[in-house]
Structure formats: C-alpha cells, structure tokens
C-alpha cells in the first residue's frame, strides 16, 4: 500500500517537469489538425470534409 502511494507521488512529480512542453505540443497538434481538416486547399480533404466545413461556418469555396 505504501509502495503504491510512493510511486504515485513519484509519477506526479516527474510529470510536472516536462509538463508545459507537452501541453504546447498538444496545442500544436490541435491547431495543425483544425487547419488541415477545416482549411487545407487540397481537393480531397475539401470534398471529404465539405459538409462539416459548412456546418462549422468555416469559409468554404
């Protein structure tokens, strides 16, 4: 029981170290994905996501 607790504490401490960088990576992935699905000019992506782009009121064609 004590072991479990100490390993949890250890984990929390280690995840605080690189936390901010990982959050920024996640933010970057999110932005890139929105741009790709919602704004990329490639026809294939446009056609597949067409109705969704309209429904999110993204500028479309």
């Amino acid at each position, binding site marked *: 029981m004590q072991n479990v607790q100490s390993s949890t504490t250890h984990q929390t401490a*280690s995840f605080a170290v690189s936390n901010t960088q990982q959050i920024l990576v996640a933010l970057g992935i999110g932005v890139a*994905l929105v741009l790709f699905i919602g704004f990329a000019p490639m*026809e294939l992506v446009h056609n597949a*996501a*067409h*109705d*969704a782009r309209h429904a999110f009121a993204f500028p*479309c064609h």
Partner: protein
Amino acid sequence: MTLRNLILSALMVGIISGLSYGLFQQLQINPIIYAAEAYEMAEPTVDHHGEAVVDPHHPAVTTGHAHGEAWSPEDGMPRIISTLAANITIAFALALIMISLMALHNQKSAKPKLNAVRGVAWGMVAMFCIFIAPALLGLHPEVPGTNAAELEDRQIWWLFCAISSAIGIAILYYAANNFKLAGILLIALPHLIGAPLASEPGFANSDPVAIQRLLELSSEFYLMTAIGMLILFMMMGALSGFSLKIFFSQPV
C-alpha cells in the same frame, strides 16, 4: 504522461461532442445544404413550385461542387460517414486546443481551477472566438452557392479574427487592469478592418425564385448552425473542464 492524457481526454470529448454535432447536422443542417446545392449549379431547372428539379442525367448536381477529379464521397451513406468523420476530427482538434489551454491555465494561473461548470464558460468563449466573431459577426455562415470574396482572403481573415478574439479575451481575463483596453481593441480589430465580403452580395444563381428560396435557406442555416454550435461548445466545454478535473489533478 501529460501528452497522453491530453490526447486521450480530447479524443473522448471530441468523439462525444463531434458525434452529437454530426447527428444534429445530419438531421437539421444537411437538408439545408442539399437543398441549396440543388440551386448551386450553373443552369438549374426550377419548376413552377419553386423547387429545383434535379436532372437525373447530371448526377453531379447532387454531389455538389466536386471541383476537378479528386475523390468525393458518394451521396448517401459514404457522404454521411465522411461528414461524421470530419465532424469528429474537427471536434477532437478543437477539444485538444481547449484542453491544452485549460491545462496551461491550471498550471500557470492563480485563477480558479477548471471543472465542468467553468468549462461551460470556456465553451462559450470558444464559441465566440470560433463561430460568433468570425462567422455571425463577420463572414456569415454560407449555404453552398452564396457569392463570397476570394476564399484565401476569407480564410486568412477568419483565422485572424478567431486568434485575435481569443487573445483579446485572454488579456481581459488574465492581464492587469492597465492592459485590458488592449484586449478590447484586439477583439474589435478584425471587425474594424472588416470581413472580406462579396463585391456583389447574393447567390451564384440569378433566378428570382431560386434567390427567394436561397434566402430562406440561408436564414434557416444561420439559425441551425447557431443552435448546433451552442450544443457543441457547451458539451465540449463541460466535458473538457470535467476531464481536467479528473485527469490533471495538480501535483502537490
């Protein structure tokens, strides 16, 4: 650890909220899109009831405006699945952005930590930045076949407006009083510059009956996208705030 939690939370939030919005779209928004597309073609035939007649010899009429030769989902199930997948992916991506910013907030700010209720407030701010400011107050949600300015200009303005609004609201919330005016200016700036609008407002189709019908469809489209976005962002905000509370408890 953090990255994995962020992505898994965003997946959960994105699938639930994106699927809900996708189903709402299939029921309430797509009928409007399909109806508008029938009028979008260069030479639509309109019968005496003002309903567009779809020419069975030109099936392209119903698949909308697939430019060029690229793959485009067939009408019916493939188009529905493709749209649902896009809804979920966009919702996942937006949720990932929201959850990341919430995590930064929890980590850096002395303001109250996130929970489901505060998450709803974040959802409303997101709706302002992503839908109300760039679309309702700016470019307007468009049914297919609406005249509009150059696509690239509109996309750049949209992104500028969304980012400027978000930074403006962040300044209003986080910054010291002396800087709050800058926040208001950033929110107003895209609208002072003005959205790139069509030089000739209206629709590609010049038939008066078609225009009348397209105007009706446009106002239905405004209303339905607004209701749908409200549902989406409330769910997304609440679920994101909730996941922050569960998965990102502060290290002691």
